[in-house]
């Protein structure tokens, strides 16, 4: 509903002038969110609307209301804005005489302005209510978000308090507990309900009370306002039974709005090292390099598996040792070695990927696999084959193509309730037996064989202690002349007077000593004892009675052997010619010149060397003929076993050659008169063995 407005220049100018004046006054008194030019443009439209209302009576109400609403929409909502608008608009419209006849103009303007005022007030009222409504909603929204956050925080705190192993309490400045958790109750051996209402100071050891009071007062009082100060110290609390409970106590102020501050008490059980253990557990149970479980972890898993495994299928343990692993670290460097171990770890895990299994690294190049068998688990032979197939696939490590193999000891389906340690021992023993057969071998644990092996290993392990306990003895066995049975010399033997076992014979003692690295020190000890005895016998008999000691391979290889022998001779005063040292063909003829050189030096010094040719290998015997300076060859009983055989006859021929070269011949282990006769026939001068006399204390030799 529009009405034609006067188009004459004066009327146009009057309307523009009104809009400009209105815009100027409004924008300089009240905030209108637009530029003055924009406001002028808007207000010009409103002026036109007002003029139409004055010109056409039926439009008056409508025009006034529209303009009132528009003003509020322009954010012109203040009383000042209304006052300016009514003044400017009324005066302006009353001056536009062309809009209506004089007698009507005044009333029409009043009608329009009245409608404008009414709608302005109505709109302002509505806008105010809407905005207050918005504010209320915003307040509610902000409050609700804060409440949700608060509830979440509270739930978090409660969860922490409930499940923490740290004792947590909130106390008033006077020390009264308003809240305490289960952990604190546990530390103090009371119930949480019982704790609430008690005083922290009464719960503390009498000696601690004064200090605690001062701390709580300081935190709850003035000091609290200076910032979040916290006190941590060891402290003794009292349990229900009066016993002290050591805790690490942390006190912190809890600031509150419109309420006195409280103090939060944290009490960590100082005797409870569970937390620390938890952190250490992983490190303690895993190998750092391969990240595989270690022996400890494996053992505990095995222990569990032995109890819980399905008895119809049981478990299988594979104990692996990489063959010749030292050649990786020694030959290609530690980096390659480490890398190979990691790759092996991955490969072994792949082999048992489909099984309920654990792969562990036990030591340097030792691994173990535990398989909890199911009906579908491959048999042991298949698994062993797959392990070595997978390991033997070459791969590149730091530029080297490498492949590995493993020797494996297997324990298959041990009885339920077996001890995991015994089981691991069995696997280890089986592994050692397998190693005896060379690389890439495997062995199933055999309970009977285990017993023997286990005894030997435990003996070796306790040998050093036995030496200290004087359980190791040097015994002497006479070596007699076959011609007349007189004592020509004595051989020193090592015996172990084991408190729990039969006396261990020389051969076993020497083998054990060799296994444990005791051969060199034990050998030196025997040597010295033997030299001392030989001197004693000479004094008693008035003639030389040489003594003989068989060097073990490691003692023969000892670079210090010459020094040890010379020292023993010097300290005891024994003539070198009264000492005879037995050496194996392997020591004497080995490529390592140093060993042979040492022996040669001793021989040149007068010490008698005797070749231990127990097997009577002809090549050794022949090498002796134009080889190192050996005074005699000592042979065991194998050749004498069949006196009439071709082998015996051949040996007799060889021994003839030896004898012709001026080298003596002596027999060991002679048990029968037939053997003694045979030896005499092939040219042996002397012999020892049960037929003549057993080994005994030194005095037996001269009796």
């Amino acid at each position, binding site marked *: 509903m529009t009405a034609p407005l006067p188009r004459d220049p004066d009327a146009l100018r009057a309307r523009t002038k009104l809009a400009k004046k209105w815009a100027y006054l409004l924008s300089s008194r*009240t905030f209108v969110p*637009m530029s003055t030019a924009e406001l002028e443009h808007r207000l010009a439209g409103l002026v036109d609307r007002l003029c139409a209302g004055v010109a056409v009576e039926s439009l008056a109400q409508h025009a006034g209301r529209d303009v009132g609403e528009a003003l509020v929409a322009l954010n012109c909502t203040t009383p000042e804005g209304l006052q300016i608008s009514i003044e400017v608009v009324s005066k302006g419209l009353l001056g536009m005489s062309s809009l209506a006849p004089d007698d009507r103009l005044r009333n029409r303007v009043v009608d329009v302005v009245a409608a404008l005022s009414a709608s302005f007030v109505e709109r302002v009222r509505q806008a105010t209510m809407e*905005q207050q409504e918005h504010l209320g909603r*915003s307040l509610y929204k902000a409050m609700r978000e804060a409440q949700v956050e608060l509830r979440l925080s509270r739930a978090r705190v409660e969860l922490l308090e409930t499940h923490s192993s740290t004792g947590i309490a909130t106390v008033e400045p006077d020390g009264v507990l308003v809240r305490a958790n289960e952990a604190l109750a546990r530390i103090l051996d009371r119930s949480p309900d019982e704790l609430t209402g008690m005083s922290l100071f009464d719960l503390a050891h009498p000696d601690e009370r004064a200090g605690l009071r001062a701390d709580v007062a300081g935190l709850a009082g003035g000091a609290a306002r200076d910032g979040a100060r916290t006190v941590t110290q060891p402290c003794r609390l009292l349990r229900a039974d009066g016993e002290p409970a050591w805790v690490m106590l942390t006190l912190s102020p809890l600031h509150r709005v419109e*309420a006195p501050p409280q103090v939060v008490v944290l009490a960590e059980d100082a005797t409870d090292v569970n937390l620390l253990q938890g952190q250490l557990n992983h490190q303690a149970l895993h190998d750092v390099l391969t990240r595989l479980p270690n022996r400890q972890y494996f053992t505990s898993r095995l222990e569990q598996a032995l109890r819980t495994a399905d008895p119809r299928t049981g478990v299988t343990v594979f104990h692996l040792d990489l063959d010749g692993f030292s050649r990786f670290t020694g030959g290609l460097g530690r980096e390659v070695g480490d890398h190979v171990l990691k790759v092996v770890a991955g490969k072994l895990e792949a082999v048992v990927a489909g099984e309920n299994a654990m792969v562990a690294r036990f030591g340097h190049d030792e691994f173990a696999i535990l398989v909890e068998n199911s009906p579908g688990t491959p048999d042991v032979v298949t698994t062993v084959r797959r392990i070595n197939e997978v390991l033997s696939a070459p791969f590149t490590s730091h530029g080297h193509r490498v492949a590995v193999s493993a020797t494996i000891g297997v324990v298959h389906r041990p009885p339920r309730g077996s001890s995991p340690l015994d089981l691991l021992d069995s696997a280890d023993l089986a592994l050692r037996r397998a190693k005896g057969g060379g690389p890439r071998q495997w062995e199933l644990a055999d309970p009977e064989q285990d017993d023997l092996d286990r005894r030997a290993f435990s003996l070796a392990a306790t040998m050093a202690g036995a030496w200290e306990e004087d359980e190791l003895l040097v015994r002497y066995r006479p070596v007699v002349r076959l011609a007349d049975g007189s004592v020509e010399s004595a051989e020193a033997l090592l015996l172990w007077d084991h408190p729990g076992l039969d006396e261990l014979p020389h051969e076993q003692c020497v083998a054990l000593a060799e296994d444990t690295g005791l051969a060199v020190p034990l050998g030196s000890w025997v040597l010295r004892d033997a030299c001392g005895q030989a001197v004693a016998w000479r004094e008693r008999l008035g003639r030389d009675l040489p003594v003989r000691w068989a060097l073990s391979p490691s003692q023969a290889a000892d670079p210090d052997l010459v020094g040890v022998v010379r020292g023993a001779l010097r300290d005891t005063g024994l003539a070198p010619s009264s000492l005879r040292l037995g050496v194996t063909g392997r020591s004497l003829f080995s490529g390592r010149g140093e060993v042979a050189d040492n022996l040669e030096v001793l021989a040149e010094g007068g010490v008698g060397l005797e070749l231990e040719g127990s097997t009577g290998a002809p090549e050794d015997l022949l090498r002796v003929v134009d080889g190192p300076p050996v005074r005699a060859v000592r042979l065991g009983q194998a050749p004498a076993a069949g006196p009439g055989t071709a082998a015996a006859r051949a040996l007799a021929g060889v021994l003839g050659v030896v004898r012709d070269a001026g080298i003596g011949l002596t027999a060991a282990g002679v048990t029968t008169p037939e053997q003694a006769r045979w030896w005499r026939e092939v040219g042996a001068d002397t012999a020892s063995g049960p037929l003549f006399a057993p080994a005994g204390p030194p005095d037996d030799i001269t009796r």
Partner: protein
Amino acid sequence: MSDLDWVPEGIDTSVPSIARTYDYLLGGAHNLAVDRAMAEKVVAALPGTRDLVRLNRAFLRRAVSHLVESGVRQFLDVGSGIPTVGNVHEVAQALDPRCRVVYVDKDPVAVAHGELLLAGDPNSTAVQADLRDPEDLLGRPEITRMLDFDEPVALLLLLVVHFLTPGDEPGALLARYRDRMAPGSCLVVSHATADGRPGTMRRAADQVRESRSRDNLVYRTHEEVTALFDGYELVEPGVVGCALWRPAGAGDVANRAEDNTQVWVGVGRKPLDGG
């Protein structure tokens, strides 16, 4: 944990809020009696207060228009207060609808109101954060989603820096924002001053303090306000009285001459050569 009647800071309706007080001084009704009481006390001490607030709002409109015209399309309005009429997004998006605007205030009510108001606008959002913690503020996902700091951003700080105490080190604080913004980014500041009328302005500040407002006015001199633009090149006419920054009509100027220079304003641009 027994404080069940605890009211978070900014929602406590017994304490006046700067954001709601501005709203009242601009003619809005998003305010409470406690806010109106503080406003009237300040007006009594400083009769031109309404004009100062109005001129500041007019300056904001002119500055934003200028920035859009010179190519800036991203706006970070910190201390935005309650968004009522004539807001940044309205001004900017009227010129280019692609303009993105983030309103930041520490007042949870102002932010809640902003969220309600901007619910349907994909290019604008409101975030509750504190000007004094730039790393937290600039790292907010709501902000990094909306604004690309590899492109120029206009940081708008209107009538908010004068609530920073000397202990807040406003210069160092603004430098941390500057260092995070791309070359071509802009800083807009308006800041109340006591220059010219120290007594009157002190009485106005006293009224704010006595009303138990959490924020209190710290007036700064022309020199101090100019120093806030360290690292920026000031756009003409530099740091001037609010009404004197490129006025375009009667609404941009107050009748009382002193009201025209009671707030220092300026617009700076971070040079493209990174200097």
